[in-house]
Each structure stands twice: as structure tokens, then as C-alpha cells.
């Protein structure tokens, strides 16, 4: 696999074809886990692991998967990796596991993973698929980390649980609640699409 191709795959997933703010996929967990930075990081690591490895596995099996049942096979592959992630998080970080609740299991239905398997892994060799899965996972992760940073800072005045804003700071409690997540993501999309990415026709729409 040429180095230029890998670079292109990464650039595309991190920028012009980012799963979160351009394709608007995987929004559930983007919103749900971003109120505390630590949980977000754990979730992101889990997702990168699952996306990269499931993409590679689907690609390895692509010649043997009958096309009629391919969705089912993909879901089963993804679910197996998610179980590994869930067990590891439960064993190593029981507190985080409790706070994340069902959202670790819901990585299975995260449309980014399914989307990459369908759009990339089924027609590309394993190594390129691994790179693509990794890139998609990272493209998702950095957006989540930025959002989580803002939400935790504004909502609780802390970063990674450490208080950084002084006593004068009044917490915007709305930021850690549901509406704050929607507004934060909308503002993020607004800034990126409106100012950072050149205008190129109508925005692409989501999904599944």
C-alpha cells in the first residue's frame, strides 16, 4: 500500500469527509458521552479499536461473505469486538463503565462503523481497510474530545476532573444536560462548515 494513499485516507477522514460533522454519523454517542472528558476518551479509544479491527476483519472476509446476508455478518463481527471492549472497560475502569452505561454496547449500532464496512472494507484490501477504520475512528475522536473539553469546562468549570476556573465561575449547568449537547454540536458544525471548509454545493445529508 502506497504511503500517499494512506495519507489521503487519513486526510479525508479527518477533514473533508469527517464522519461526525460532514456525514453526520454516530451522533448518539457524540452527544451522550461528551459531558465529561475522561468518559469521552475511554469511549473514543473503544471506538477506534472497534472501527479499525472490524473494518479489517470485514475486508479479510469480503470474498466469502454472501452479499445477501452481509449486513448481518458485519453486525456480528462488530458486536464481537464491542464485547471485548465492554469486558475490558468493566474490568479496568468499573466507574467509567457504570457512567457510560449502555453506550459502550451501543457502539454496535454506531453508523460510522457500519458505514465504513459497507463503503470501504467490502471493496478494499485488509491493510487499507485497517488504515481507513483507524482514520475514521480518529476523525470521530478528535471532534468528540473538542466538544467534551468545551462542555466540561463550561458546564462544571473543570478539565479531567480538576478545577481550572476559579470560584467566580458560575457553571452553565445546561452544558452538561441534554440541550447543551445539541447546541454545542450545532455550533461546532456551524464553525467548521461555515468558515473552515470551502463552500462546495449543498451539504451532504445523513445516513444509514
Amino acid at each position, binding site marked *: 500500500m502506497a504511503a500517499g494513499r494512506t495519507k489521503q485516507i487519513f486526510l479525508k477522514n479527518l477533514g473533508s469527509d469527517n464522519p461526525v460533522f460532514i456525514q*453526520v*454519523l*454516530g*451522533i*448518539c*454517542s457524540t*452527544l*451522550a458521552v461528551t459531558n465529561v472528558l475522561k468518559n469521552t476518551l475511554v469511549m473514543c479509544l473503544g471506538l477506534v479499536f472497534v472501527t479499525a479491527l472490524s473494518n479489517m476483519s470485514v475486508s479479510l472476509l469480503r470474498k466469502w461473505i454472501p452479499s445477501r446476508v452481509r*449486513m*448481518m455478518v458485519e*453486525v*456480528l463481527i462488530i*458486536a*464481537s469486538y*464491542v*464485547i471485548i471492549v*465492554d*469486558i475490558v472497560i468493566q474490568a479496568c475502569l468499573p466507574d467509567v463503565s457504570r457512567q457510560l*452505561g*449502555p453506550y459502550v*454496547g*451501543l457502539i*454496535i*449500532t*454506531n*453508523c460510522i462503523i*457500519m458505514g465504513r464496512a459497507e463503503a470501504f472494507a467490502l471493496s478494499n484490501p485488509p491493510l487499507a481497510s485497517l488504515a481507513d477504520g483507524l482514520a475514521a475512528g480518529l476523525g470521530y475522536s478528535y471532534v468528540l474530545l473538542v466538544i467534551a473539553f468545551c462542555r466540561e469546562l463550561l458546564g462544571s468549570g473543570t478539565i479531567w476532573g480538576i478545577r481550572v476556573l476559579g470560584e467566580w465561575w458560575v457553571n452553565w449547568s445546561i452544558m452538561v*444536560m*441534554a*440541550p*447543551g*449537547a*445539541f*447546541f454545542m*454540536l*450545532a455550533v461546532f*458544525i*456551524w*464553525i*467548521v*462548515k*461555515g*468558515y473552515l471548509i470551502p*463552500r462546495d454545493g*449543498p*451539504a451532504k*445529508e*445523513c*445516513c*444509514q
Partner: protein
Amino acid sequence: MTGVALFAVFFSAVFTNNILLTNYLGMCSFLGASKTVKTALGLGSAVVFVMACTSVLNWVVYHYILVPLDLVYLRFIVFIIVIAAFVQIVEMIIERLSEALYAALGIFLPLITVNCAILGASLFMIIRQYSLAASFVYGLGSGVGWAVAILAMAGIREKIAHSRIPHGLEGAGIALIVAGIMALAFMGFNGVLNLN
């Protein structure tokens, strides 16, 4: 469980803990299929039906198969298989029974397998340790809550379809802001019913 407690579960699933607006589940199809009221109604009713049935099925599978066999860690894989199989069977039955119903719901059913709200409802029901009856009511209520949210959203999006929206906010951006305002409105239901 008494009738009042069951009603409380239903009410909280629809309003105070709306699965979409407070737990953010099913956002992808929420943003993707909320352009017209007709589509939203079709998808909404399919979700209500599938969610109510799969919650019950998954409850039975979890408590009578997974727990006795000590296979709880396999729940993700088993739940998703149950959901996918159920959706497939319903699709085939509807296709045979009614042409009109298939035209209305048929295209939405495959989308539902990957709708995270369905799997989410089953996982929440296990975490919150509901009884069988409560699980049914919870699944039904979550479905209704999801349908209410997507219908309201579709109504609003039809109204703003021709409004002038800043370039960066077109599409997903404005939909998220509308969802945020709706979530604010639904927070008003907090405390109407005191649970637990």
C-alpha cells in the same frame, strides 16, 4: 407492579426521559428521516411497534436463557440478533398480508435494525431491572416518545424548509439546534411525576 407504577414508567419514557432528547438514541435516523411528516409518521410507527415487541422478546431471552446459562456477557450479540431476526420476520409477514401496509412501513423496517434506540431500549431495560410488564410498557413508551419527537421535528423542518439559514447551519446544524430547543421544552416535564 401496580397500574400507577406502570403508568409512571410509560409517562417518563415518553416525556421526562425521552429516549431521543435526553438519551440521544436514534439520532441518525432522526436527522435523516425527518424532512417530511409522512416519512416521519411511517418510521415513527414502525419504531413503536418494533421497540415494544423486541423489549419483551429480549427480556424473555435475557432472563430465561442468558442468565441461567451464565452468558450475560453475550447480551449485545444476542439482542442484536433477536432484533434483526424479528424485523426480518415482520417484514416478510407484512409483505404477505397487506400491500398497503408494506408500502407504508416496508422501506423503514431494514433501517430499524441499525437504529440504536431499539438496542438502547433493551439495554436500558436490563440496567434498570424492569419486570416483564414494565419492560413492555417501557418499550412502548420509548417508541411513542421517539415517534412524538420525530413527528414534531418533521413538522418544524417542513415549516423552515424555505427559510434563509446561514450556510454553515443548513441541514444538520439547524436540525440540531431545533432538537436542542425541543429538549429544553421537554425538560419542563421534569418533576411532573416523581419516580422511584
